[in-house]
């Protein structure tokens, strides 16, 4: 018995040694990749943090490594807190999200439900529906830029329908420009919602729907009690993707209005872009970017934690 126990112990130690050697080898092998990641992700972040604490700009006549000489006592962050243009850009971004994402979700869901049934020409409609998603956003922006010109097709059609000469200056009226931009975003991204939600709907077990029907549930009852709860995870994913993407809205919008008229459609991305290319205040931009990154990470972290908690409670 003793000898057996000893053997066991020896084996355990040997295994431990082997384990350690394995781990060391693993470290060596992944080292190049880790250094690369360090360079790609960590270094820019640190550099950003560094610059965000200074009033350095490419026109300051010094290399970025000398930026410390322009240390400005957190002035970038303090300015940001009271920068009216920043706050309105943030609010505008949130407003775009509040309009576009629910609209895309509801439209996408409605279309997905329609596509659960079979009808003539379903495949053709399916292809047509997915096309906007394939269009390069900048091209989509250009399309809607032309559509919404005062002499453009939108006004032409409105004239033809109403019988009056309609010449609305869509893109130069602050609130109309906002609507035009939202329409373009909804046009382009409803298909993605549709696609994800259709996948979700198709994943709802057919026999459960049949069982519910046999128990006397009508369509709406089945939708609320079976389909929606079964799609919860996929709805969360679809909304998350669109919220994150929509927060970064830029190409379409920039080509249509360039944030204008004035700053009427200026979102965070456009705001940052202008600060970077027009004002060249890179220290300030670095500060904004960091604030956005950290707030988004915190918000997302909380959302994920809550979701995980709910899932654990459910199981």
């Amino acid at each position, binding site marked *: 018995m003793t000898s057996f126990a000893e053997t066991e112990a020896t084996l355990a130690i040997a295994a431990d040694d082997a384990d350690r050697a394995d781990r060391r080898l693993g470290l060596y092998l992944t080292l190049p990749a880790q250094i690369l990641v360090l360079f790609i992700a960590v270094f820019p972040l640190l550099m950003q943090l560094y610059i965000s604490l200074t009033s350095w700009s490419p026109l300051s006549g010094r290399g970025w490594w000398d930026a410390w000489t322009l240390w400005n006592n957190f002035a970038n962050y303090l300015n940001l807190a009271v920068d009216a243009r920043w706050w309105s850009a943030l609010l505008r971004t949130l407003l775009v999200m509040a309009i576009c994402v629910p609209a895309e979700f509801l439209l996408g869901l409605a279309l997905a439900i329609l596509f659960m049934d079979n009808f003539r020409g379903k495949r053709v409609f399916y292809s047509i529906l997915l096309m906007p998603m394939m269009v390069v956003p900048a091209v989509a922006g250009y399309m809607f830029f032309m559509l919404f010109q005062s002499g453009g097709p939108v006004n032409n059609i409105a004239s033809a329908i109403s019988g009056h000469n309609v010449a609305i200056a869509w893109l130069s009226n602050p609130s109309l420009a906002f609507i035009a931009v939202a329409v373009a975003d909804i046009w382009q991204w409803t298909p993605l919602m549709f696609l994800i939600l259709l996948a979700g709907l198709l994943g709802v077990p057919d026999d459960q729907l049949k*069982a*519910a029907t046999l*128990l*006397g549930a009508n369509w709406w009852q089945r939708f609320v*009690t079976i389909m929606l709860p079964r799609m919860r995870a996929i709805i969360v994913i679809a909304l998350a993707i669109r919220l994150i993407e929509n927060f970064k809205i830029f190409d379409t919008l920039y080509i249509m209005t360039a944030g204008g008229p004035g700053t009427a459609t200026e979102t965070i991305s456009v705001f940052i872009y202008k600060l970077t290319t027009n004002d060249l205040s890179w220290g300030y931009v670095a500060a904004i970017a960091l604030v956005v990154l950290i707030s988004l990470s915190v918000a997302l972290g909380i959302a994920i934690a809550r979701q995980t908690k709910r899932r654990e409670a459910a199981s």
Partner: protein
Amino acid sequence: MSSIHLKGLTKHFGSFQAIKQMDLDVHDGEFLALLGPSGCGKSTTMNIIAGMEGATTGRVLFGERDVSDVPMTRRGVGFVFQNYAIFTHMSVRANLAYGLKVRGVPKPEIDKRVAAIADFLQLAPFLDRPSAKLSVNILQRLAIGRSAIVQPAIFLLDEPLSNVDAAFRAVMRTELKHLQRQFKQTMVYVTHDQLEAMTMADRIAVMDHGVLQQVGTPLDVYNNPANVFVARFIGSPGMNLLPASLRETDGNIVADLGAAGVSRPLPRGAAKAAYAQGIQDVWFGFRPEELSLAADSQGIAASVTFIERIGSRTVVHFDAGQAAGKAVFQNDVPLHAGGAAHMVPADAAVRLFDRSTGRAIGEA
């Protein structure tokens, strides 16, 4: 309470005929088993009764009422799916309450009936558990409870016991029978397991290749199979069928089994009548349990190929002429593989089938 009548039912899937011209009456309060091998159309029949699929032609009646065009939401049949189709995102309680809730039954009434059915099916300890992680046995009872709680007049079960273990299956067979006696529903039970059909059903409807082969009480189907398919399908092992030709000897009709010998005079008039009609080529059928050993040169001459001794009984596989057969004896028999055996079927147990049509000859 409601009877079910299928009239001239057919169902095509493209060019495939799943059901061919089926007429079936299920009596009010009856437990009918729809029995057949996989792909025989029994599940399709069930889906048509439930309204999940429409028939290509033919009508479905519940009692006097033609429900062929009534959508499944309003047919009001209880249905237990083979995989149970439990709403796994809900608790056991929510599953049970579902049918009542969607019908707008008031809350206190729902609570009362859920408690009652949970008590009856021994689901009470699980009521507030999520249904996703229950064992198959509990899911099974839950599936039955969820349908039974709305007290449907017609209850359809699609192979509900095929996923549960053997011991629980025996328990559930009794439970189901008990449930049906208590609620007096008309039950249609789809199964490919003849033991389930024989033990539970008032009548059995045997199907094959979309054709209803025979409807009758379990014993009737067992004793007097309407055709060769039913004879082979019912019973474990099925009926032995040896090719034979009828001929007359000394005023008696006998079956000539070729190399296996000649049968004793066939006692029943049907054989005589068939012979008179010119039917000579028949299947000579008898149950494996109805054989007894005979002295040499009597009865059916067979060579034993294989013997299974299962304790309570002995199954002897044998060749008789060109055909193979099985014999089942209650005790061990002095036979050995490779040896010869002479066996005689009990006179009353012999069944004859027309070899050209496969149909049983009279009360043979």
